[in-house]
């Protein structure tokens, strides 16, 4: 059977895949935060080699890692060029009209660019090795302290689960409606922007109506199965820290210490 994947999960058996999703989520956030403290080239080298070893351990082909970067390309170029032109500095390399490029600018642009690339790649590694459902569970678990201040954490997680569940169903439906409208002479592919946007209307209206009907029926089905929000609920799969998760934590701490040392004392 063909495995249709939602999101960009890459199925494989690796130590990174089997880590507790909470560790992966927390670790990614932690890594991104540390990136913003980094300024020295030595520290960059540590961060990048740490990321590279995680990628190697994850057994996901590296070409998947850089897919996320493709969509980022414009922002990357934009940020880097702003930095090149706008960083004030002494050491002028090129000067033309009102533009002036300094060596400080070039080095700043390179650092910012590198930071962005590392940041996006790190989050890509996480989504490639964690299924959306695991991620939802991790978010619910990590945010659960917020329940005390009445943030509906369980409800948010349930909404995410249902959204994930219905993405393929609704995609199938879009396909069906599109074909039905095309059979009646609808044209989705030609014309200018306005005309195309207008031609989407006969697609969107039936889709919305059916989504509401689905929501209504699903609510009834959930009611029939005794769903009453977070009240007295248990879970079949309990997330438990294994030894590898503790090891991952220790490695993360060692990494943070090394990074701080390189950044401040060298």
């Amino acid at each position: 059977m063909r495995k249709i994947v939602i999101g960009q999960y890459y199925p494989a058996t690796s130590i990174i895949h089997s880590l507790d999703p909470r560790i992966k989520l927390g670790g990614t956030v932690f890594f991104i935060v540390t990136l913003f403290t980094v300024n020295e080239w030595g520290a960059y080298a540590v961060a990048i080699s740490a990321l590279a070893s995680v990628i190697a351990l994850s057994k996901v082909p590296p070409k998947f890692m850089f897919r996320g970067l493709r969509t980022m390309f414009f922002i990357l170029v934009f940020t880097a060029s702003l930095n090149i032109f706008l960083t004030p500095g002494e050491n002028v390399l090129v000067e033309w009209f009102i533009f002036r490029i300094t060596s400080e600018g070039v080095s700043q642009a390179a650092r910012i660019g590198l930071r962005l690339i590392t940041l996006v790649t790190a989050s890509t590694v996480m989504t490639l090795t964690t299924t959306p459902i695991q991620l939802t569970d991790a978010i619910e678990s990590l945010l659960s302290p917020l329940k005390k201040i009445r943030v509906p954490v369980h409800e948010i997680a349930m909404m995410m689960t249902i959204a994930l569940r219905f993405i393929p169903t609704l995609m199938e439906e879009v396909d069906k409606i599109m074909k039905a409208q095309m059979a009646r002479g609808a044209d989705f592919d030609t014309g200018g922007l306005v005309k195309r946007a207008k031609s989407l209307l006969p697609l969107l209206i039936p889709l919305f109506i059916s989504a509401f009907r689905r929501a209504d029926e699903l609510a009834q089905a959930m009611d029939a199965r005794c769903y009453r929000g977070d009240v007295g609920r248990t879970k079949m799969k309990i997330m438990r820290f294994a030894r590898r998760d503790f090891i991952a934590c220790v490695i993360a701490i060692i990494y943070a210490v090394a990074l701080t040392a390189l950044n401040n004392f060298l």
Partner: protein
Amino acid sequence: MEIIFNTESLSFEYISHDEKKEQKTLALNDINVSITQGEFVSILGHNGSGKSTLARHLNALLLPTAGTLWVKGMDTKNAQNTWQIRQTSGMVFQNPDNQLVATIVEEDVAFGPENLGVPSAEIRQRVDWALSSVGMSKYADVGPHQLSGGQKQRIAIAGVLAMRPDCIILDEPTAMLDPRGRKEVMQTVLELNRNQGITVILITHFMEEAVLTDRVIVMDAGLVVMDDTPRNIFKEVDRMKKLGLDVPAVTALAHQLRNNNIELPDDILTIEEFITYFKP
């Protein structure tokens, strides 16, 4: 045998809003039925006869506007009983897509027991048992969108089973399925009834499915008009026609032949039975 459902002049009235006027409709009108544990009952009736409304009462999704319905002695109008009632009588709906909640089959089956607060280890056991009862064990970790309609309905049945109900109510579960899916679902439901003694209430449009049950309740305009074994129900071909219902094709054929003076009994339900009268 213990009585599982019992009604006393159960009525349900709802107000439908037309363009300008409000209209009161009596969807259920003074229903008195009782269903015993272990029965396999089908409910027939054309659109708007009240059969779906009745089904939704059996699981406390709707509450009677007059009269009373007891599920295992529990009055559905008492809000304290609601969750116990829904656990006792699980419900499977028509559209297989709109009743699965989770992105993975086993997580969906676990949804009911999770809501009931069953301990994790026991949920695991129940899920494995429910999936094997409907013959879907090997699909435990696929997504619902990778399954056929019949398979999705079997998962929905497993999801109800995992709550350990006494009764399963199926509201036209095969209406959106192809013939193969229809057969799969009927087979599953029959096995559950025969092997595990689970009461089944099947609301259906397909007479061939009703033939397989122990008892047929025919509804029309909110009333129970017939309540008997399939054999006694379907022999009244003309009355069924008047109610806007069919009889199984083979019963209709036998009826026609009999009208043309060919000697046949009036209660033939299956092709196999029919053939026996033509063997030399």
